[in-house]
């Protein structure tokens, strides 16, 4: 049964998995520039030569900047959680702070008709797919409850 499997992030160090999960970006210790995914090779600002970047929790809410859906199953390395394949919605979300747009799937069960540009969303963590020995987790966007 899947309940006995450990749940692990599908990518290490990009997000937390607590009740109010956040994406973990990096923040330059010299100039304060934030980046996601977190950078291991220094500040993205061209004239900043600092390599030291600290982990930085990004705003966990934002508004949909644009969205689309995947009507056909993407090729590997995407692994579909369902058979037959169920389409999902992808949203690019402008975070309420930090000045960037982050892509993510909308939560399971959300259709393109449920989404519009400007829709307030918040970050959640859901199953991406299951292997024999683990549930792989990923961040997704969910419409805010009072939206």
């Amino acid at each position, binding site marked *: 049964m899947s309940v006995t499997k450990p749940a692990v992030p599908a990518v290490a160090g990009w997000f937390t998995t607590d009740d109010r999960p956040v994406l973990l970006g990096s923040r330059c210790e010299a100039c304060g520039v934030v980046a996601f*995914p977190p950078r291991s090779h220094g500040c993205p600002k061209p004239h900043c030569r600092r390599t030291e970047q600290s982990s930085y929790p990004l705003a966990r809410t934002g508004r949909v900047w*644009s969205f689309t859906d995947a009507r*056909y199953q993407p090729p590997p390395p995407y692994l579909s959680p369902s058979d037959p394949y169920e389409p999902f919605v992808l949203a690019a979300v402008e975070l309420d702070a930090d000045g960037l747009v982050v*892509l993510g799937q909308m939560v399971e069960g959300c259709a393109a008709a449920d989404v519009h540009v400007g829709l307030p969303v918040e970050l959640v963590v859901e199953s*991406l797919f299951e292997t024999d020995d683990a549930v792989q987790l990923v961040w997704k966007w969910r419409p805010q409850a009072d939206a």
Partner: protein
Amino acid sequence: MRDDAVVLGVGMTAWGKWGRPFVDYGVAAAREALDDAGIEWAEVDLIVGGQTVRNGYAGYVAGSTVAGALGFTGAQVATVYGACASGAMAIDHGRAYILAGLADVVLVVGADTTPKGFLAPNAGERPDDPDWLRFRLLGATNPAYFGLYARRRMHLYGATESDFAKVKVKNSRHGVDNSRARYRNEVAEEEVLASAVVASPLHLLDICATSDGAAAVVLCSAGYAARRAVTERSAGRPKVRIAAVSTVTPAFPDTGLGLPDIATDSTAVLPPPPRSFRDSIAHAAYEQAGIGPEDVDVAEVYDLSTALELDWYENLGLCPAGEAEQLIGRGATALGGDAATVNPSGGLACFGEAVPAQAIAQVCELVWQLRGDALGRQHDGARVGISANQGLFGHGSSVIVVR
């Protein structure tokens, strides 16, 4: 204008889906370009190949693979890769040799054999590769990004699915008489809108296919062209020169969510640059050529999707932001329209995408247009042509040719 490289010959296979070795296509295009230039392969000082990443080791070293297939002559060789911008990068490399006086004659060639369906990362587990991660974590295919850009256009400018479909209608008409095009049937707006939705708001017929194909150009120095002009086949036909090659990267912070990005740069500390990345691609080319958008007669732009072609109108400065729908609506960018003709070849809509060949194929079409050789799709009196595309991982690509 500087005494720039001359395009002495062009060659291009038909685009299709045959599954033959990519080198077969590359050799065919190279031979046609050499014949068109009226020179022997042995006269080439440098061959530059656009790399293909889906055809094994021979594809990684495409320049020498084609050179070996033509018969090694001792010419210098380079192979370059910039995703969809590879062809412009290859032309850039060859042109630099000529401008530096290091070569008189350069052969540039790109060829590809593509798999069916979505373009996808090569097999294997590569959790450090952003291109692998966007598929694994998000299922974000190329058409998904095209869908995001298209929806953004609808939100910003009130574009409709009908506006997007009109681009396909125009390009399909342009391609009807182009013997090298893969799709040569006229498509009606209703057919586009009735085709299956792939990545909403985009339908199947809004999105380009992937194709097999090859294109090649022979570049030479102005001095070499002058010496040959009296006797050779090229005598009497308009001399087409390269006026600019832009292969710019984005400037931080880039707000464009280019492929395969999972997020944009942050603008919290530094505001975005005055021009978007795509705007900067053409701007750099115009600056280099010393001309502006008002001078352009024909443009070959990367219509990976119909909606993206509308973005390019604005990126090229053919109209202000938000007015591309008016251009396509009144037929301004169609042959005989009141603006520059866009994608007279039929574009990717009629060709499909053969990654390392495509930016070279764009230049081939511009050269045919400037020579007056574009049978059935000629923009009369074309003197200035510009190409534009963008490759994954921050590759700009724009070439200006003039006569």
